[in-house]
């Protein structure tokens, strides 16, 4: 990517790169890709937990963006525009795979899978920080529906009304699934800490 690095070394602004990309400048496209690839790929990876699928979706998201770049007028931030496009691409792919949005009354799959409510005895509290790798593994292990809502809300920062529109569920369902996702992560992280503590 020597040409793109040259652009970066010349401190090309994103706005300049967008205008040059509209003219068909290959270096400008590559510069924009380099600027946003990690954010888009990470989103796709968090949602699918599959590197090959995430790369395909990353490719598709950028292609859709670049095909429409001539229509970008700068009303919103470019990154926001790309971000929403990436989310739509991922959600469309998940719909194709028939990932169901579980209705509110059916959010408890089974007693074994539902986060256990521990009432009465005090719970140990997680430490003040969480290892990023452990958290990532715990997120990857979430059921797909919980993972999707958790990634959209807590990682990507969408509000529940936005998630409800994108995913096609109610706001109440979105909040319920998010809560269950966090409870499952809490359980997984506590188990992981306990296992680590018992190892010699």
């Amino acid at each position, binding site marked *: *990517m020597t040409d793109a690095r040259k652009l970066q070394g010349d401190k090309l602004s994103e706005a300049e790169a967008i205008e040059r990309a509209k*003219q*068909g*400048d*290959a270096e400008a*496209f*590559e510069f924009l*890709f380099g600027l946003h*690839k*990690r*954010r888009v*790929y*990470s989103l796709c*990876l*968090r949602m699918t937990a599959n590197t*090959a699928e*995430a*790369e395909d979706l*990353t*490719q598709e998201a*950028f*292609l859709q963006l*670049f*095909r429409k770049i001539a229509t970008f007028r700068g009303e919103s931030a470019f990154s926001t525009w790309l971000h929403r496009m990436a989310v739509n691409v991922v959600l469309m792919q998940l719909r194709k795979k028939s990932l169901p949005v579980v209705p509110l009354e059916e959010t408890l799959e089974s007693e074994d899978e539902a986060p256990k*409510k*521990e*009432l*009465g*005895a*005090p*719970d*140990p*509290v*997680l430490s*003040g*920080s*969480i290892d*990023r790798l452990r*958290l*990532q593994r715990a*997120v990857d292990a979430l059921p797909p529906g919980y993972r999707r809502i*958790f990634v959209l809300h*807590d*990682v*990507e*920062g969408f*509000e*529940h009304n936005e998630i409800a529109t994108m995913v096609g569920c109610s706001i*109440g369902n979105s*909040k*319920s699934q*998010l*809560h*269950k996702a*966090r*409870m499952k*992560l*809490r359980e997984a*992280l506590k188990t992981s800490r306990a296992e680590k503590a018992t190892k010699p």
Partner: protein
Amino acid sequence: MNCAEFQKFLPELIDSDRSAEQESHLKSCPECSGLVADLNLISREAQQLQEFAEPSPRVWNSIEIVLRREGLIREPHLGPALVPPVRRSWTLAWLAPVAALALLAVGVLVYQREVHEQNVAQQPASSPVAHLSVPPGKTVNEDQQLLEAVGSRSPAMQAQYASDLQNVNAYIHDAEQSAQADPNDEEAQQIVMDAYEQRATVYEMALDRSLP
């Protein structure tokens, strides 16, 4: 309010204010306050997952191939135009003989390359020239036949597909070198397969264009 009642409303308390009764329970209950603290911590720490991973180089390679094929990437002019732009009628008038000349030139180049390939084939296997631009098992003839098929139907796209093939063959070459360096690297093997798939895609697109 007891713990069961408080925790029943926890999903609704996400992103919203707590009532006075709920706040009072939270202050007096170590279990519920510990639970809420843990859930808030998980939510905060989740943001550090935002930009963790990086895609492989094949992603950009694939994007670039498609952008070039769709004409979204246009080669820049090397300098100010030395001749004024021709009118459309002129362009159409001389396109046919120019296309014919281009095909003739390509044919000559192919013939010269075939002669060179035959000479190279007689060289030792370690010669770097033998495997430079065409994947093993493939010959220049296959690519050239494809380009001729495209050129016969759509001369304007022939150069585009020639560029696509050059890019994807270089990608295959790099991917195979990587895989050969570490035969146990499954990801490298997958990248090789992906590279061949891309080549197959270029062929598929080119043949679609060349069909009536």
